[in-house]
Structures are given as structure tokens and as C-alpha cells.
């Protein structure tokens, strides 16, 4: 399934937040949305998730307008992981992940739901904590449980807003690796990121936003140029050898 924004714009209280953004997220890719604070990344992702209506333009899911689609159907096609989640109210880890199966309540069997939740918990490494109360988890563990909830939807489109912001480097690598696996299995993944090193390493394509405009989109090596860093972020870059970004993280031996 392809999620497409068809030249969308949004103005809120006189501020132009997004200006004619046209991009798509394709099956098998991880699209990284990067840009300075206030560039409109999260707003764009919220529009792509159907949470905010663009002023002009359309959001299309396989050619069908996202905002005219029945909510339940949309819920099965698209999983959204917000930047901040409310404090867990003490449900077990498994129950939280099971919430991801709510959109499938009329279409999937209990076994299918159980399998999907188990796979999601395995993927984020939280199976061992399945029966623990989510109130008794660390910040990183809670972020992974909420990710498991989003994975359990098994939606063809996965949208995540700064999913690694609360994670240590090792967990961040694991989670980004997980998005890569989702893409490899045919999901279309869009991720808002601040960490350019992670973006360069794990994203198939990168879309750069600045002041509500799409500045550049393409493979990391083509997009993340010295000129772009200077123009968009206002920083200079010192390159060391063949590394494409100022610095780069590599996989650690220790797995969280």
C-alpha cells in the first residue's frame, strides 16, 4: 500500500505550517522525515495519519482519500505511534499490546490476535514482561511496549513520531533495525527523526523539511550534503573519510 500526500498545505492561526508537500511512502521502504525543530515534521505525520485535515490537497491511501475512508478500515491500514503517550494506567504489558488489535475486532480471530501480539512483544524484546503492569516499567521499556502496540496492528502503513527520542543508543539501534525489518516484510514505514546518523543509516529515503517546505527527498547519500546542513540546520560539517554524516553509529555487541 502506498501512502501519498498530494500537495498538502496547512495554515494555523496565520502561520503557514506546511506548504505544498507532495511525497509518498512506499511498501518496503523506511522514509525518514527530518528537519529542524518547528519545520512541520510532526504536523505532516499527523496529517498522514488522518488526525489533521490539510487545508488544501489530499492524503491518498492506494489512491483512496484517507479522510473519506471508514474509520475502522483506516485503523486496520495505518498504525500511528505518537511522540508522547499518556501515562499507562496499570494495564499489563500484554493488554497494552492487545489494544493494537482493536481495529481488527470484527475481522480477526482470537488466535490471530494472540499471535500478532506475541510476535510484536517478541520483536521489541518484551515477551518476558508480558504479565507485568505497565505502570512498573522504565521509560525505555514503556516506549517499547507502545511500539509493540503499533506493531500488533500489522498495518501496511506504519507512522512513528520520534520513536527513539526516549531510548539509549543501543535500544535506538534495535528499534530502527526493527523498522527496517518491517519494511523488508513489505510495510511502508515513515519515521520522524532528529538523529541524522540514525536517519542516514536506516532510512531508504530521507525527506527534509524546513519552514513547512519539502527541501529535498531521496536516498540519504544524495540528500545529506554539506550544502543542505548549512542551509537547513545552519551547521558546518567536518567529514571523516567515507562517512556520510558528521558521525555515525554502528551496531553494538550488546543487545538490550
Amino acid at each position, binding site marked *: 500500500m502506498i501512502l501519498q500526500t498530494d500537495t498538502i498545505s496547512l495554515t494555523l492561526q496565520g502561520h503557514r505550517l506546511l506548504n505544498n508537500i507532495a511525497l509518498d511512502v512506499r511498501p518496503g521502504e523506511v522514509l525518514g522525515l527530518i528537519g529542524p525543530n518547528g519545520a512541520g515534521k510532526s504536523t505532516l505525520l499527523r496529517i498522514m495519519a*488522518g488526525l489533521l485535515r490539510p487545508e488544501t490537497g489530499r492524503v491518498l491511501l492506494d489512491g483512496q482519500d484517507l479522510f473519506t475512508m471508514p474509520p475502522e478500515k483506516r485503523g486496520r491500514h495505518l498504525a500511528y505511534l505518537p511522540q508522547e503517550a499518556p501515562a499507562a494506567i496499570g494495564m499489563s504489558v500484554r493488554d497494552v499490546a492487545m*489494544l493494537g488489535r482493536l481495529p481488527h475486532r470484527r475481522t480477526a480471530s482470537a488466535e490471530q490476535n494472540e499471535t500478532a501480539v506475541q510476535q510484536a512483544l517478541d520483536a521489541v524484546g518484551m515477551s518476558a514482561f508480558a504479565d507485568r503492569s505497565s505502570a512498573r516499567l522504565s521509560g525505555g521499556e514503556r516506549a517499547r511496549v507502545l511500539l509493540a502496540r503499533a506493531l500488533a496492528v500489522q498495518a501496511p502503513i506504519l507512522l512513528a513520531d520520534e520513536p527513539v527520542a526516549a531510548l539509549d543508543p543501543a535500544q535506538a539501534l534495535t528499534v530502527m533495525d526493527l523498522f527496517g525489518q518491517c519494511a523488508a516484510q513489505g510495510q511502508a514505514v515513515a519515521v520522524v527523526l532528529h538523529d541524522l546518523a540514525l536517519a542516514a543509516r536506516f532510512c531508504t529515503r530521507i525527506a527534509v523539511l524546513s519552514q513547512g517546505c519539502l527541501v529535498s527527498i531521496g536516498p540519504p547519500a544524495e540528500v545529506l550534503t554539506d550544502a543542505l546542513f548549512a542551509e537547513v540546520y545552519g551547521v558546518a560539517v567536518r567529514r571523516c573519510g567515507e562517512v556520510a554524516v558528521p558521525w555515525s553509529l554502528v551496531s553494538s555487541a550488546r543487545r538490550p
Partner: protein
Amino acid sequence: MSRYSLTVAVLSALVLALAILSLAAGPAGIGVIQGLSDMLHGRETIAATIIGQIRLPRMILALLIGGTLGLSGAALQGLVRNPLADPGVLGISGCGALGAVLVFYTGLSAVWAPALPLAALSGAGLATLLLLALTRGGTLVLVLAGAALGSMSAALLALTLNLVPSPYASYEIMHWLMGSLSRASLHDVLIATPGLLIGSALLFSTGRSLDALTLGEDVAQTMGFPLRAVQWRVVLGTALAVGSGVAVAGGIGFVGLVMPHLLRPLAGARPSRLLLPSALGGAALLLAADLFVRLPVSGAELQLGVVTSLIGTPVFFWQVWRLRGRPV
């Protein structure tokens, strides 16, 4: 048997036992089975009259009103994701009672009977809408607004009753503010039951949406549960259920606050799993309280709300004590 099923089974048995006890208890020493059988066969005996005209309406109303109070407490707490939500604490019952009093003492309800529950549920509905509009301000704003609504409705209610030429004004004020089933009649059952049942059905239908809401409004919406749809169902359901209850029994407090707190450890933290146990628990609490007020303790009957508050507040304090020091 899971802990949830066990909780529901035990509570159901408790409600059934209390309902039977409620029919059997009273100053007139009559046989329940004899009375019921006389009533069903249309024999106009004393037992049939007492059961049919006094005890049965009282039992049905205690069961339904207690149930809807527990249920609306659980649904409101799920909707605003705040354990302090309750129709009594937030002034919803008080505003409902004010609506009922205005219609009752202007004589409008004598002309057109449905005016009474309609006025009560309008009062309760307006209060719920106002509170929902303020929930975005956070816990503090919600509780302050609820306290303000409660005090305002109590003051206006007392003022209204002081203005009507009734020698029993202070007794009437007590009835509406604290709640009572001592005057429950078959007519009250007919007036209140439709709203209580429809309201309950609406509130029960919100379970999955409330589950989704635990992940926040945005995620719930992307999963196919728009917040607005849930809000309307909870507002309408609460207004119908609480309004209809208040119209015949006054503002009975603390049931909706206490039951979800008490049952959360047993039924689990999922809001949908709390609805049925809270309804059963609320019904059991009100049936028990109504049995208690009938005990010949002080000669005059206690107000029902006095008993539920006396039972409710220690439980509430205990919960607050457990929550101390934790961030809201």
C-alpha cells in the same frame, strides 16, 4: 475461571441476595413468596400491596440507580482518564437534582409527568457538557469546576425550596441533596426506568472506545475511535442515567467514585472490564445502603446518601492514602 469472571459472578450473586433481602425486609412481617404470588395472581391482599407498591419499586430503583451510578462513574473515569470523575463529586447529580426541583415545585411535573425526568437529565446533561469542555484544562480544572457546579446547584436548590411555601422545606432539601428511596412508588419506577436503561446501554457501548482512549486521543482516533463519538455517548448516557435516577431519588453520592476504585484491583485496569463490575458493585452498594436505612436505629429513616457517603468516604480516603505522593 478468570479473576474477572469470578468478580462478576460473586458480585451478581451478591446483588441477587441483596435484592431478595430488600423484598423481605421491613416493619410489616409478611411473607415475600406469599406476597409475590398474591401480586402476580392479582389477589389484593396486604402482603401483595406492600410488596407491589412499596418494596418492589424500592428494590428495582435501588438496583437500577445504584447500577447506573457505578457504571457512569466507571465510564466518566475512563473518558477523562481521571480517577476523581464521578457524577456526585463533579456536580452532575446536583445539577440534575436542581432541574428536577425546578420542575417539581413549579407544578409542571404534575401537569406532564415526563417533565420531571426530562428536566433532571437536562440539568445533568448540561453539567456534563460543561465539564467535558473544561477537561482539556487538566485534572485541577475539572475538579474545581465540579466542586463549583456542586456548590452552585446545592445553593440554588436550597434557595428554590426555601421560596416554595412548604412547611417541610428543610426535609425536602435533605431529600434532594442526599437522596432517598423512602418515597419510591411504582410511578417513580415507570418514570425513571426508560432513562436508566437507555443510559446504561449507551454507557456499556463505550467499552472498547474507552480501552482505545487509554493510549491517548490521537492513537484512539487512528484506530477508528474518534473521541467525539465516545464523548457524546458518555455525556448522553450519563445524563440519561444519572438524570433519571436523580429525578426520583435525589442526588446519591459516592457510589460512582468508590466502585471503580474498589474493583480496579480485581477487574484489571482495562476500562471496558470495569464497566460491568462497577455497575454490579453500585447496585449491591445501594441495595445494602437502602436495607441499612430501614433498620430501626433512630426512629426516623436515614437519608440514603448519608449511608453511601459514610461507606464511601473511608474507602475513598484509603484510596487517596495509597495514591499519596504519586504524580496525578
